[in-house]
């Protein structure tokens, strides 16, 4: 350690000058030319609604915190090229970002993380403060819209299913009604059968047992399809109401509690990385240079060195006196 320090102090100029050059030039350049602005928005995810719980179950999250689950969704969305394109199209960059590389750059600067059980923070680091704000705003809006669209599509699919069920029920009911009508026309005596059923009087109908049996079957089928039709109508109505409620609640699931603003000052956090990198590079280079020069220098500097390398004894080691 002492020997190492001795070398560093002896070669202090050789150490300090390259160190300062390598450390200061990139640091000053970063400070003046690589200023990064940070724009952010804070999004509140409501956890009280039944819908949010439903949404959690849909994404397979079970009992996890709402922000965490939606953060996962948002993080996955941020990896999507389409989503980023939609975000970009909402900003001044619309039509300007053409290559995948440019999109990747935006993707890399856009981050989302949870800051609490119900809050998601969306952050963008960019050289242009206005654009940074626009991108964060567009991202939060797109995310909310995406969730809304998701529910709308889901609702549409549910309603469409119940509508198809209703159509099927209607068709079956119509078929059974027609079959019964046709049978009644063919066998007028069935009218007396119906009357006897209603009055419970012992009227002689003159209908054969086969006619009676077929009439009963057709009548039961008609009653069954009628009930099915009523049920399908009810289900559809209920689905429509549920969809309306889901949509209403989804619209209230997210709230932007901190809307993005145009950052007034640049982010100091982002300057740390180039400064730290240049510091370590400068340190490594300067130490390397000192080591190399020391290795190249064949001169004898200390008594220990002289004793080791020369085969003649060192009788005295006269210290240098300043001004000598």
């Amino acid at each position, binding site marked *: *350690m*002492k020997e190492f*320090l*001795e070398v560093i*102090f*002896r070669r*202090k100029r050789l150490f300090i000058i390259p160190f300062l050059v390598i450390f200061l030039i990139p640091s000053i350049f970063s400070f003046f030319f690589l200023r990064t602005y940070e724009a952010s928005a804070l999004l509140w995810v409501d956890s009280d609604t039944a819908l949010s719980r439903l949404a959690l179950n849909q994404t397979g999250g079970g009992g996890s915190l709402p922000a965490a689950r939606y953060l996962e969704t948002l993080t996955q969305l941020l990896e999507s090229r389409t989503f980023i394109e939609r975000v970009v199209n909402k900003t001044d960059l619309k039509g300007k970002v053409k290559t995948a590389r440019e999109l990747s750059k935006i993707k890399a600067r856009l981050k989302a993380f949870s800051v609490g059980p119900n809050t998601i923070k969306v952050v963008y680091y960019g050289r242009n403060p206005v654009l940074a704000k626009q991108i964060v705003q567009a991202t939060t809006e797109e995310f909310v819209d995406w969730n809304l669209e998701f529910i709308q599509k889901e609702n549409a699919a549910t309603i469409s299913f119940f509508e198809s069920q209703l159509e099927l029920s209607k068709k079956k009911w119509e078929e059974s009604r027609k079959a019964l009508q046709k049978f009644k026309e063919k066998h007028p005596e069935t009218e007396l059968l119906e009357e006897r059923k209603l009055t419970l009087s012992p009227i002689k109908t003159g209908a054969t047992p086969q006619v009676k049996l077929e009439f009963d079957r057709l009548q039961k089928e008609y009653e069954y399809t009628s009930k099915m039709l009523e049920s399908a109508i009810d289900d559809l109505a209920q689905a429509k109401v549920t969809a309306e409620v889901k949509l209403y609640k989804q619209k209230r699931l997210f709230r932007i509690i901190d809307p993005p603003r145009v950052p007034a000052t640049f982010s100091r956090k982002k300057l740390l990385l180039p400064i730290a990198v240049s510091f370590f590079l400068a340190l490594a280079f300067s130490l390397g240079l000192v080591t190399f020069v020391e290795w190249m220098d*064949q*001169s*004898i*500097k*200390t*008594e220990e060195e*002289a004793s080791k*390398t*020369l085969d*003649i*004894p*060192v*009788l*005295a*080691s*006269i*210290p*240098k*006196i300043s*001004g*000598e």
Partner: protein
Amino acid sequence: MKNQLENYNRELIEQIYQKERVGEMDMEGKVEKKVSKDIEVLEEYKKLVNFIQFIASNKQYTLSISSTLSGEGVTHTSVNLSKAIAQMLMADVLLIDVNLSRPAVHKYFGRSLTPGLLEIIEGKILAENVLKNSELPNLYVLPAGHPTPDSSKLIRSEKMLFLLEELKSRFNYIILDCPAFLVNADASVLSSFADGVLLVVKAGVTSRELISKALSQLKEREKVIGVVLNEVESYIPEWLSRFLK
């Protein structure tokens, strides 16, 4: 006893570093700091003097001091070592400037370059008339003299050897301030006239390769008694040094 030793050290320091200290006496803070450094220097010279005394074994001893290249502090070491021997051993010491290409010993003692060694060898003047003691009664200094085109030849000649033999009978210790081995070929010849060779190595300047090269030029390698590592610097600040201890 401790005070006596401190006073002795201080006097010796002032003798050795007379010039440097005069200019710094008014800077109180610096002087205190410098004294501790001076004591370190003194201790190193004491070690060196003790070693030379040991190898001389109470006999006359001629020591040649040289380096690989010029400017490594040979004259400085020669002058300081001569003073230290004269002070510590109370012996008669003669310091001869044999570096004809860059004579400098006379400057340390405020003397003129001539008359000196070359004039004695040439027979222009007698040694008794040139040899004068310095501020120390038992330390004598012989400047190089005025160099001529034949100086190198003269200094390698038998006359030089005879002169040295004559001087050996009068002085306990003779210190030869020689030129650098790799700069002037006189150095290796002069080293052969001495009993021992001391190599001055400037810390952080002299390379191992040059030292090996210089040693390879010596005819009698076994004469090299050791190395004086000169101008050794500690670069670690004092506060950190204390912490590391």
